[in-house]
């Protein structure tokens, strides 16, 4: 299915990507080209086939519900904000969200 300029605008908004007005039309063309190529999948009979999200035939492992040490654990506020562009104390600073 071909997608138009307005659809690109909507999808870019959903993806939180600021695409300038003049890029919308070329993007619509590019994406339509890719989608057209993808649509050959309609030739494949998938009746009764269950969708596959992972190739690993195993159940997700369980662990004790306790706080671990190390990078997957807690207690390291310095590391959490270390790479943030703007912080104050151990908070991330962003423009005002609620008036």
């Amino acid at each position: 299915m071909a997608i138009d300029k307005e659809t690109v605008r909507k999808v870019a908004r959903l993806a939180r990507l600021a695409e300038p007005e003049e890029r919308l039309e070329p993007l619509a063309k590019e994406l339509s080209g890719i989608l057209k190529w993808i649509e050959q999948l309609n030739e494949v009979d998938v009746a009764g086939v269950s969708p596959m999200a992972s190739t690993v035939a195993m159940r997700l492992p369980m662990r004790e519900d306790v706080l671990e040490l190390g990078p997957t654990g807690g207690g390291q506020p310095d590391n959490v904000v270390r790479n943030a562009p703007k912080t104050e104390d151990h908070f991330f600073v962003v423009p005002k969200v609620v008036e």
Partner: protein
Amino acid sequence: MGSPTDLTLAELCGALKARKVSAVEATDAYLANIEKATALNAFITVTAEKARDMAKASDARLARGEGGPLEGAPLGIKDLFCTEGILTTAGSHILDGFRPPYESSVTANLWRDGAVMLGKLNMDEFAMGSSNETSFYGPVVNPWRKRGENAKLTPGGSSGGSAASVAAHLCAAATATDTGGSIRQPASLTGTVGVKPTYGRCSRWGIVAFASSLDQAGPIARDVRDAAIMLRSMAGHDRKDSTSVDRPVPDYEAAVGMSVKGLRIGVPREYRVDGMPVEIEKLWAQGVDWLKAAGCEIVEISLPLTKYALPVYYIVAPAEASSNLARYDGVRYGWRSKETTDIRSLYEKSRAEGFGKEVKRRILIGTYVLSAGYYDAYYLRAQKVRKRIFDEFVDAFGKVDLILTPSAPSAAFALGEKANDPVQMYLNDVFTVTANLAGLPGISVPAGLDKDGLPLGLQLLARPFDEETLFRGAAAIEKSAAFKVQPQSWWA
């Protein structure tokens, strides 16, 4: 003895243990090679000081008769692996200045085994690309050139820095990752060996995520034995990755050189594309003959859904990427736009400025196929076709032990040649992407040169977690091919 950089990883580890060369000498020799090779643009960050410190520590351990299997071996690390305190960019502007406070599990395994880090290797942005041209840091240049020509060629992608640096002897071996062919295609284009292990074999923890159900780390090395040595250190169960599989890591090196007599080799008739050079067909037939001569039984097989693998991939991978890359918001790490007025413009502008063209294209495709009204038609259908492709391989591996195919549909092409046509670029992965969708292990082995003197690879695929048979088969091809050609070092 010549330069330690002329040695394979196996030879170097032997020389280090025998104290014929020190880790500091080997590291300095590699750093000197790297310094001379800026024209290749293979490294984003060179960690010379850290490398020398690690090498000194290795020498101390070796002097005491201690040390791991990779003790003192200087390696290159694809810049998709988080390295503690060291700039990690994923080839993207949006990760400007990002220094992870933690180490990826795969690199931690390598340091545990004594390896030395030379630096971080260039790559396509977020591993999205087949020519290294999407890197924010500029394309890597292939050390190989056409005979008698000076045109710059691509080393392939996304692990182009890994492949080029191994081919040009800028490191003893390198880490890489493969989501649709990003290890095997660049290996094929640079005359190196690249292994994509079974999904779940190497931990994904600390590797910048692209498409989580497809991403898998593996080595690029100079020969099959070196790749086996690298994989043994990289692989292993990790509780921090819930898809990491808990089963012992075999001694892959022991499989190298084992007889392939009696192995059944599947040759899928569908692994051909329009416009594929005759030389690749010929090389493939040659590979069949080599394995037959080594005592393998050749079985014609059919994988009729092969041509649908790439379209499935270009739904599944962008869908997962659009979700994984939602984390780059200009708040917690990386690039933040200076032009923000409110929280939404902070998100939208930081992402628009931070991501390159191809990454944005894929985020948009992914967002579209997951959006209301299109999910069933695209994403769900792709997952169903994926299941059928998986089943097709299960059937095939009931009849054969390995599958032999070409690695890539062409030799290295010129930088810029395919940059304006996304679908043409995507077709580079036509032979490799099936293994990602089905979670299978695959290897690319250099097998010959084309008419212009450029390397071509052959690919073997194996059953899940049967990397040992993969290495056996690959070593047999390597032995028959006797591929010894090196690129002329025009860059030094």
